[in-house]
């Protein structure tokens, strides 16, 4: 299969380059690079679980011995199990909606585990795996999807910003945060701080994302843009957002872009560590395109049978991010069946715990509607609240008679 990359002709290339305009098929091949992600895809573990040496990135995962790899495996299994449980709970009417991450575990755990305590992550709405890696209790995510809450964790403690549903908004917010790290002198050496910001391939069309690139670039913000290219923005394929492989866009803004195999947890960890390291030392920003695939619907309200081909899904199942780590561990003797069984058991218990929590989640009291609209209170709202409560009281006392 051709996995040739197509790049824009350089300005000095002259008419010949213009004549070499690619056909639509080549463009699409360049974007998706067929099923491989392209020649420039950074990969450390193949889908078959073979370790590929990388002169540039091996040093970033030197410390990942069998035990650490078992840890990454466990992370991914737990996160996937939680994701499947939440999906099932939505089907059973316990959650209003769920946003599956199936297939994106490696991108999220790899990048999430590359972060340090002082780093900050700005998620979109699918980053349950990153949340887990940041130490957020996954129970605290569920209120959003059960519609009892708009958010629910301690952002500062976990270095994990609230979910953002409006596509692209968080990218500028992250740029601002990273500018703040810079302005406070928190970058420049090994101990520097960095920010990472997550968004999808669809989001790259939004003005906010482009503006985020510009801001981060001109202020040298320590910001890693982490685009999970899962091939689809609801029903729209990546080709509908760009004529150029997304990572190549970075160049136009003046910072490096790199495409990593988003189903390879080791490569995601290595590349994220490298990028964060650049940022810590004041060489940011960096764009990472994690080339992956959304193996489930966009959300539980979506119907992917209307737009995507099932053989595409079958093809990606062969590249499952968890299976390849398992194969690598098993082959190299890094883990035995007892280990895999124990992780599965732990994952089942983890899911059961989430389920029980969800079923017993308390409903917010009605006057929660009015709480915290302002930091400083508001007399108009205060009287609306009182009126509302006495209106509700009217029903209660009517019921007593």
């Amino acid at each position, binding site marked *: 299969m051709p996995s040739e990359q197509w790049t824009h002709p350089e300005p000095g290339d002259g008419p010949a380059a213009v004549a070499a305009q690619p056909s639509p098929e080549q463009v699409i091949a360049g974007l998706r690079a067929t099923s491989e992600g392209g020649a420039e895809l950074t990969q450390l573990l193949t889908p078959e679980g073979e370790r590929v040496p990388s002169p540039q990135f091996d040093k970033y995962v030197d410390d990942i011995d069998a035990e650490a790899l078992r840890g990454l495996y466990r992370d991914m299994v737990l996160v996937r199990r939680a994701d499947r449980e939440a999906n099932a709970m939505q089907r059973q009417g316990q959650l209003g909606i769920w946003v599956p991450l199936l297939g994106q575990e490696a991108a999220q755990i790899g990048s999430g585990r590359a972060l340090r305590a002082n780093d900050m992550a700005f998620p979109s709405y699918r980053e349950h795996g990153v949340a887990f890696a940041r130490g957020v209790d996954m129970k605290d995510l569920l209120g959003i999807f059960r519609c009892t809450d708009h958010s629910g964790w301690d952002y500062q403690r976990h270095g994990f910003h609230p979910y953002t*549903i409006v596509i692209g908004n968080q990218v500028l917010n992250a740029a601002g945060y990273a500018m703040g790290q810079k302005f406070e002198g928190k970058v420049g050496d090994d101990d520097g701080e960095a920010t990472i910001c997550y968004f999808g391939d669809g989001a790259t*069309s939004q003005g906010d994302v482009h503006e985020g690139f510009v801001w981060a670039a001109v202020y040298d913000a320590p910001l890693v843009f982490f685009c999970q290219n899962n091939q689809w*923005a*609801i029903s*729209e394929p990546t080709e509908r957002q760009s004529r150029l492989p997304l990572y190549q866009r970075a160049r136009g803004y003046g910072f490096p872009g790199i495409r990593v195999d988003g189903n390879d947890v080791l490569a995601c960890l290595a590349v994220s560590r490298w990028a964060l390291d650049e940022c810590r030392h004041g060489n940011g920003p960096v764009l990472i395109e994690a080339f992956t695939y959304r193996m489930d619907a966009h959300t539980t309200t979506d119907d992917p049978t209307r737009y995507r081909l099932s053989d595409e899904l079958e093809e990606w199942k062969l590249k499952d991010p968890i299976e390849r780590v398992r194969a690598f561990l098993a082959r190299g003797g890094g883990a035995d069946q007892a280990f895999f069984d124990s992780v599965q058991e732990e994952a089942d218990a983890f899911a059961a715990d989430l389920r029980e929590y969800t079923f017993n989640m308390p409903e917010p009291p009605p006057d929660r509607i009015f709480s915290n609209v302002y930091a400083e209170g*508001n007399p108009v709202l205060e009287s609306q609240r009182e009126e509302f409560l006495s209106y509700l009281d009217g029903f209660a006392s009517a019921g007593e008679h």
Partner: protein
Amino acid sequence: MTDLQKLTIGKALNLGLRRAMEEDPKVLIMGEDVGKLGGVFRITDGLQKDFGEQRVLDTPLAESGIIGTAVGLAVRGFRPVCEIQFEGFIFPGFDQISSQLAKLHYRTQGKIKMPVVIRVPFGGGIGAVEHHSESPESLFAHIPGLKVVSISNAVDAYWGIQEAIKSDDPILFFEPKRLYHSGALRAEIDVAGTPQRMFSSQVVREGTTATVVAYGPSVKVALDAAAAAEDEGKSLEVIDLRTLSPLDLGPVFESVRKTGRLIALSEAPSESSLTSEIAARVQQECFYSLEAPVLRVTGFDTPYPPAKLEEHYLPDLDRVLHAIDRSLAW
């Protein structure tokens, strides 16, 4: 020729769009997921298949882009119909709407027309997460140069979308998303009939005790309240505004002169809103006919709450009846 069909609001919109596209090759549909998927609510279902990818455009994911390019296409003679997926996502396009779409005709003293329709599913009651249940229509009604309309039933959906597309002015077309597929609101429509005009307010139920004016999803709430009030011996007149900017308050004034009481109903927060405007204008025009102050039944002045609380946030028929009692107690 007649072709009677019993249609939901969603299906009526779909057929209205189809007819507009058949009649005028310059009509384009553009938005996120409007093609193969037929839109997240399936309102554009099947249109790309029949009209092709150049007339039904699955656009890149960017609202400023959707609206800004629609402005350019309109300059070039097209009549774009943009779909915004959920009202909460219109704001990246707000700049293009307020700075360009609404003002080009004025700035060029009529040389550039802006026959652009922006379809916006709006309102709550679907149990969704943030940004999927809001009612931002007042923000648009406040912008000079835009027309803002809202539909509440399938007949208006079918004819209204066609009238909007034919208009040379930019129109924000608010659709009550929770009613799209309501079987109870199915209406018999002669889809081959002669176009009807609908951008004026309309008395949808006659009554004498008090008037309730509403639009979009709230019209059903008002009608339900009127049915419940009847059991208590009260007769409510219900008016569907349909046009939010410019407001057509003639029928409201007339009604208030008859009943002496007005309840303005909307899901949107109340401060500086359409219901504020209605209250102000009615007290100005009908001061001597009013038996009680104009009362408003609205969402609260808070962001839309988590959906588990929306039954409390959204005005329901009990809140309307309570307001009627307060008005009558005056």
